């Protein structure tokens, strides 16, 4: 009997260790969302009730549960729900907003950022969250070189230093910068990690563990009751290749304005479905409630939607990211070959001619089933800094966009003017010297990219350019990109709201300045101005001023035609109608999306 009592007590303690009891009443420092309040991003959000389970499908398994060593969205999809940071992206507008910080101040000189933390808020195991957790996450994890953490790069200031994070008191921390750098706000949205659980695995804090132990902490085989977070959900179940189950964190500090603690759904179940056709079947079968559909799913889902009680969201909002072709302006530079081809590739009029041969309308109609938008700059269309707007966050007008309309006649005249004409009568245009001009277009084995390339190849050939398209292995293609050994390459990049995150791509010494790496040693005026504008945009907290700088940089980039942009698919989503607030889905957030932002606002309308 005694043993049984001890065992029962131990079980009780251990279960308490997983999840605490939660708050007795709404904490004074709760984060309250203004549902239905006009003038806020939440004015169309409905108040919900707690309970129920929401199901979605993910394409890959997570690789671990450690937020700061994760390199892929298949992991951060869950860790972003388990952890929240001082700042976050707004659920609906996508702007940087407060989260675990209840407020923050920027000193007059712009160099000291002071964050005031929410008081009396707990980790999911019931331990108080304090400034020590912020310092641990920043100084001992993110800035710790023993930790394989990608987000460290985002913390680097323009002069190569890192912000200095210091504790003022238990609920106040400061970040001191060596120079004004607004994008640091995005980087300071890093997720917080519990010091009391993880400090023991960091070598600099616990020399008894080997260097790098933290990298192997909170892996997939870690008992799930070890996981602790401050976000809306905590992982409570994982069946390899099948599903991840998350349950509500009783200590989450988000509340709606009716005093109901968020998230509304008790459970979030993510089915791991590698094949997207199967995902769609599962959606049609009612097994998953929300679905990031593809354009080709529309003819099937739309007719079924009314009878089955789901909605198909077809929007004109572009998704994040860019797809482009790159004309390698350093072709043959390393080997000292292709001098004449390099010379013509470096001529902006030649690249303009190629840009006028890109039939974006056909690409959108034939490849994206009519559900795509044209892309003119390197900044993603949903970004408030996108140059097609008149002001920061304004509507997209494209009034000032530097565009190159599909115009084969104009392209031909530009090529003629450059002397790129058919000199030997074989039907193909030659270099000005009369030497043959053969163009190779490469892309990896991706259905959309191949379709784009075939359209481009046809138009180039119709204009007399001897272009040949070859599919090559993705890794070989990336190798060509970095070694500057390719000719014309079609690829894509991920994108975000802050243009400075693309600094690596667009500044003359960036490691992805793949259209002309030699610009680092030999920058022209445009390169230098872009470098300058990138810094100017970052060195101000005035968003309107930053927008002005970034707009100029995007226009220069468009004139420069280093990367020549193509199209971007529009945002599509499907959800069952019983999921309240799922209709607020956007490229920024969806209930089942990578950042999971909207998930905590969704609820079951049938309850």
């Amino acid at each position, binding site marked *: 009997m005694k043993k049984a009592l001890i065992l029962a007590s131990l079980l009780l303690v251990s279960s308490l260790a997983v999840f605490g009891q939660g708050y007795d009443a709404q904490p004074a420092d709760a984060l309250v969302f203004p549902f239905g309040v006009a003038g806020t991003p939440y004015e169309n959000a409905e108040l919900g009730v707690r309970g129920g389970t929401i199901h979605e499908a993910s394409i890959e398994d997570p690789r671990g549960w450690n937020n700061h060593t994760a390199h892929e969205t298949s992991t951060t999809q869950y860790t972003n729900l388990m952890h929240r940071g001082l700042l976050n992206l707004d659920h609906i507008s996508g702007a940087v907003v407060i989260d675990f910080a209840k407020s923050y101040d920027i000193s007059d000189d712009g160099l000291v950022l002071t964050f005031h933390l929410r008081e009396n808020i707990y980790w999911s195991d019931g331990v108080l969250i304090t400034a020590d957790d912020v310092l641990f996450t920043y100084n001992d994890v993110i800035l710790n070189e023993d930790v394989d953490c990608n987000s460290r*790069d985002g913390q680097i200031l323009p002069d190569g230093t890192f912000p200095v994070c210091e504790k003022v008191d238990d609920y106040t921390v400061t970040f001191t910068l060596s120079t004004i750098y607004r994008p640091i706000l995005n980087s300071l949205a890093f997720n917080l990690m519990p010091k009391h659980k993880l400090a023991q695995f960091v070598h600099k804090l616990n020399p008894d563990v080997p260097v790098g132990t933290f990298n192997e902490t909170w892996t997939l085989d870690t008992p799930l009751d070890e996981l602790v977070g401050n976000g809306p959900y905590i992982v409570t*179940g994982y*069946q390899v*290749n099948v599903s991840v189950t998350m349950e509500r964190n009783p200590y989450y500090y988000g509340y709606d304005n009716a005093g109901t603690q968020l998230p509304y759904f008790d459970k979030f179940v993510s089915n791991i*479905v590698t094949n997207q056709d199967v995902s769609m*079947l599962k959606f049609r079968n009612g097994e998953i409630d929300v679905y990031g559909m593809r354009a080709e799913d529309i003819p099937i889902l739309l007719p079924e939607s009314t009878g089955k009680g789901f909605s198909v969201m077809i929007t004109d909002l572009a998704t994040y990211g860019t797809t482009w072709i790159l004309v390698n302006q350093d072709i043959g530079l390393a080997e000292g070959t292709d001098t004449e081809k390099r010379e013509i590739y470096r001529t902006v009029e030649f690249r303009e001619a190629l840009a006028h041969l890109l039939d974006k309308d056909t690409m959108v109609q034939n490849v994206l089933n009519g559900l795509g938008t044209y892309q003119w700059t390197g900044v993603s269309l949903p970004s408030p800094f996108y140059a097609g707007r008149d002001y920061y966050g304004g509507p997209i007008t494209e009034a000032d966009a530097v565009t190159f309309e599909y115009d084969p006649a104009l392209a031909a005249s530009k090529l003629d003017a450059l002397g790129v004409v058919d000199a030997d009568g074989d039907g193909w245009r030659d270099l000005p010297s009369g030497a043959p001009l053969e163009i190779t277009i490469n892309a990896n084995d991706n259905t959309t990219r191949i379709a784009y390339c075939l359209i481009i190849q046809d138009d180039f050939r119709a204009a007399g350019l001897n272009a040949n398209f070859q599919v090559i292995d993705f890794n070989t293609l990336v190798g060509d990109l970095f070694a500057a050994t390719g000719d014309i390459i079609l*690829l894509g990049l991920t994108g975000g709201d802050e243009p400075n995150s693309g600094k690596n791509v667009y500044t003359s010494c*960036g490691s992805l300045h793949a259209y002309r790496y030699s610009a680092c040693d030999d920058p022209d005026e445009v390169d230098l101005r872009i470098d300058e504008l990138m810094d100017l945009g970052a060195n101000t907290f005035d968003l309107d001023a930053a927008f002005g700088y970034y707009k100029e940089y995007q226009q220069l980039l468009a004139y420069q035609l280093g990367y020549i942009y193509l199209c971007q698919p529009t945002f599509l989503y499907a959800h069952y109608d019983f999921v309240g607030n799922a209709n607020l889905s956007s490229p920024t957030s969806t209930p089942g999306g990578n950042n999971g932002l909207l998930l905590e606002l969704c609820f079951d309308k049938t309850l």
Partner: protein
Amino acid sequence: MLTYILRRTLYMIPLLLVVSLISFSLIKLMPGDYLTTARLNPQITAETLQQQIERFGLDRSFIVQYAYWLKNVLTGDFGTSFDTRMPVFRTLFFGGRLMWTIILASTTLVLTWLIAIPIGIYSATHQYKPSDHVVTFFGFLGLSIPNFFFALVLLWMLVVIFRVGDHGLGVGGLLDARFFDAPMSLAKFGNYLWHMWPLWLVIGTGGMAGLIRLMRGSLLDTLSLPYVQTARSKGLKERVVVYKHAVRNAINPLVTVLGLSLPTLVGGSIITAIVLNIPTVGRAYFAALQQQDEPVILGGLLFFSLFLLIGNLVADFLLAWVDPRIRYN
């Protein structure tokens, strides 16, 4: 016999070494590496990439990397996955993958054999009759439909034609979501079976067709042998001629196939497992290939090679067991 087993087992060691060297070379010949995708991330600096290259030892020469790997393997350390940060075999087998692989493969194997052998015998003994043509037609159909396509069509039929969702039934995966965290019960067991039958059907039809053809061909060969004619001329019943004399000899080639199917027990049906969402070792290995997670690829190749060699050995023993004419010295 014991000496033979010992000798064959010892032969495996140099063979596995050669396999490891060839595998290592092939991995290194593949373009790119685990960090290729990271190189395309605008937010990762060249310095960070260099740190990661050094952390994973990708900056060392081929020989040094192989020697380092081999030294660790000889001490029982197969390394840590670049991707999951777990030990290699933990990555491959974690979460019941090995168990589900063996359950899936062994049940499919048993079902396939139980159905294919009698059909093969029937087909051989009814050569060129309409029933033989029907069986042969379905055999070829099963053989020629790609498994992934068959799996998709099957799921589509369940969802769209039979509307199983209206009855609260899911498709693909091991279980319906409502059973994920439920304790084992009859209903849960039944749900496991509901999710297993499409797998048996898809994987089984592919393997079954081959077996039917093999059994049919082997039995037809045997039935034309003089000793069968002798048996018939002695007035033995056809059933005895076929089952007691012919089938016992005709089954020899199939026994070899049985032994060789051992490696597929752990590594086969990757694409079907992906489409039907089943956790298997093959899927973990496939994911490692996609990510160029070198330690897991190497560990997986060695593991599959070992099973192939053991499968060969088992095939030889089974052959000796069923055929008294074969003896190993």
